[in-house]
């Protein structure tokens, strides 16, 4: 499913060639539309020649319709497309500044590159100016301090702003663009060619335009009606090829590998514990977050969870594996990267990293149900024992077993080998390493 995982190609020749060819197409279309000519570009702002408006909004609307049509048919995963994070105030102020730059200089960066390529001297001058301007920004960025990051809205799309389905937003966008084009044609007629506009002239008359516009509206409507796939549908598509991924145990990670990653300074490890609050309080990994599977279905919560750096590694855990697998499917379907499941869950974790036997002992009597904690805890220790953080190599365990006070515990304590920590912390555990960290995006933003 598109977009393709080209981040695996990063640095190779095919990788750069892809972007080179996209750039070539981009530059050619800009030049063919007349964007290499600063007078034509500046004429926008005197309402004489509204080519820029027509090209830009046609491009946006056509691209959006294509994107969301492919998404509706499950060909493209919208959640994995790079959406420029919204920094509202820097965006608005930067935009106003750029507007000034545009009308003074007659270009924007992309068009000036095209103009420079076609030997326009003002284009070349402008490109140099842009370079200097970016350097100026680089030198003075410190002065702006935190203001540069103000009003961060993250990945914020119009459907979220207006609380409307994406398909409806696309239809409205198409209609808005068509109305702007109609107004643009009239403006060009009046301001550009100095012609009077009669009442009859208000109606669009060009047959080709009317056909194209109608086709666009029809397609947009279709997309709105079909709707966008839900995360669970995505999961099925995302993993059609690797449908056996769960069966092959690919996402299941041995506790010792989890511990290794927790020791890795270059990676943030996040543990999502989908068990009940009671079990969580009995014992959990240090730093684990307790979330119910229900909350994982909430779109805005998922979005918050998903807004993480590239080097964030997420492990989902439950007592056994059923609940964790359900949570994992939810996350993967919502497009999360670098998500894995702890093999065997907490029950297995405590086998690999047992606690002091009188703090928790395995339940041996009776049949254990699936997703039941297989240990009886004398008290809820949370993360206050060595097993919660085996990555911290210390030979001391913070828990105190009050076996001296409690005769019942004394037996269990006496039976166990008396050590600070009930296993050798330096022992070598053999396991298969399965985690492969994936990067989310190749460019830090549309403009790098």
């Amino acid at each position: 499913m598109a977009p393709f995982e080209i981040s695996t190609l990063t640095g190779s020749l095919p990788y750069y060639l892809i972007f080179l060819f996209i750039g070539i197409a981009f530059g050619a279309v800009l030049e063919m539309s007349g964007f290499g000519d600063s007078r034509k570009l500046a004429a926008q702002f005197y309402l004489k020649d509204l080519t820029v408006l027509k090209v830009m909004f046609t491009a946006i609307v056509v691209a959006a319709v294509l994107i969301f049509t492919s998404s509706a048919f499950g060909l493209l995963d919208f959640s994995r497309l790079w959406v420029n994070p919204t920094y509202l105030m820097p965006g608005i102020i930067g935009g106003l500044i750029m507007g000034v730059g545009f009308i003074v200089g007659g270009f924007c960066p992309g068009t000036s590159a095209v103009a420079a390529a076609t030997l326009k001297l003002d284009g070349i001058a402008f490109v140099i100016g842009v370079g200097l301007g970016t350097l100026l920004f680089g030198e003075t960025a410190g002065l702006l301090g935190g203001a540069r990051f103000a009003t961060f809205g993250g990945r914020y799309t119009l459907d979220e702003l207006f609380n409307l389905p994406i398909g409806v937003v696309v239809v409205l966008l198409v209609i808005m663009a068509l109305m702007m084009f109609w107004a643009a044609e009239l403006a060009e007629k009046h301001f550009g060619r100095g012609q009077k506009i009669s009442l009859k002239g208000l109606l669009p008359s060009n047959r080709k335009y009317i056909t194209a516009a109608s086709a666009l509206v029809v397609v947009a409507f279709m997309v709105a009606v079909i709707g966008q796939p839900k995360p669970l549908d995505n999961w099925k598509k995302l993993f059609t090829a690797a449908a056996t991924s769960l069966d092959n145990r690919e996402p299941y990670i041995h506790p010792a590998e989890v511990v290794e990653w927790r020791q890795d300074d270059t990676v943030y490890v996040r543990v999502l514990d989908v068990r009940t609050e009671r079990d969580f309080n009995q014992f959990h990994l240090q730093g684990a977050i307790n979330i119910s599977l229900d909350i994982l279905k909430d779109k805005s919560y998922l979005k918050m969870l998903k807004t993480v750096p590239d080097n964030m590694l997420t492990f989902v855990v439950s007592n056994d594996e059923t609940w964790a697998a359900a949570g994992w499917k939810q996350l993967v379907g919502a497009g999360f990267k670098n998500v894995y499941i702890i093999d065997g869950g907490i029950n297995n974790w405590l086998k690999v990293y047992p606690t002091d036997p009188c703090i928790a002992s395995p339940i041996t009597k009776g049949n254990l149900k699936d997703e039941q904690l297989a240990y009886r805890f004398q008290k809820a220790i949370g993360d206050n024992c060595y097993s919660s953080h085996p990555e911290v190599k210390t030979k001391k365990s913070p828990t105190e077993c009050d076996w001296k006070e409690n005769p019942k515990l004394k037996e269990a304590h006496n039976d166990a080998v008396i050590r600070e920590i009930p296993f050798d912390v330096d022992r070598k555990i053999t396991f298969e390493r399965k985690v492969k960290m994936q990067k989310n995006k190749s460019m830090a933003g549309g403009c790098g």
Partner: protein
Amino acid sequence: MNNKTKTNTYINPYLGGALLGIVLFLAFFITGNGLGASGAINRVMVAVVKLFASEHVDTVGYLANLGGGNSDTLANSGVAMLFGTLFGGFASGLFHRRLKVELRKGPSISPTTRIIMAIIGGIIMGYGARLARGCTSGQALSGGAVLSVGSFAFMFSIFIGAYALAYFVRKLWN
């Protein structure tokens, strides 16, 4: 200076927009990212500065991010795209016989004024683009196609900024 350009050979703007929309869609479809230019120009500049003053690049935070130390500033997808854009513009200009060393300007100003204003406009534009984290290709077009709120706000701001100032700089163009 010759102010005439073969305007009647430019393609219909709606057709141009449709083609651009297709290119934009393909960019997203294949790479997951849209188009862009200002970031790449930024990188090229940093690479140039690095040739003369590499310690300086290492010390200024924003620049160091792009080219500090041993990092290869130019080994970046955006830079590849920029070179493609330059080549595509050149090829199209060549094919349509629009390759001409010339200066486009309004009739009432001198070429020198135009060049100076182009540089100044570029500096302003470059600064604003880094603040807004994108330019019209990156933020407006690409962000617009994926319905980013910030991108639409940004787009309208550019138009407002330009239209507001248009009257005062009308001598440059008319």
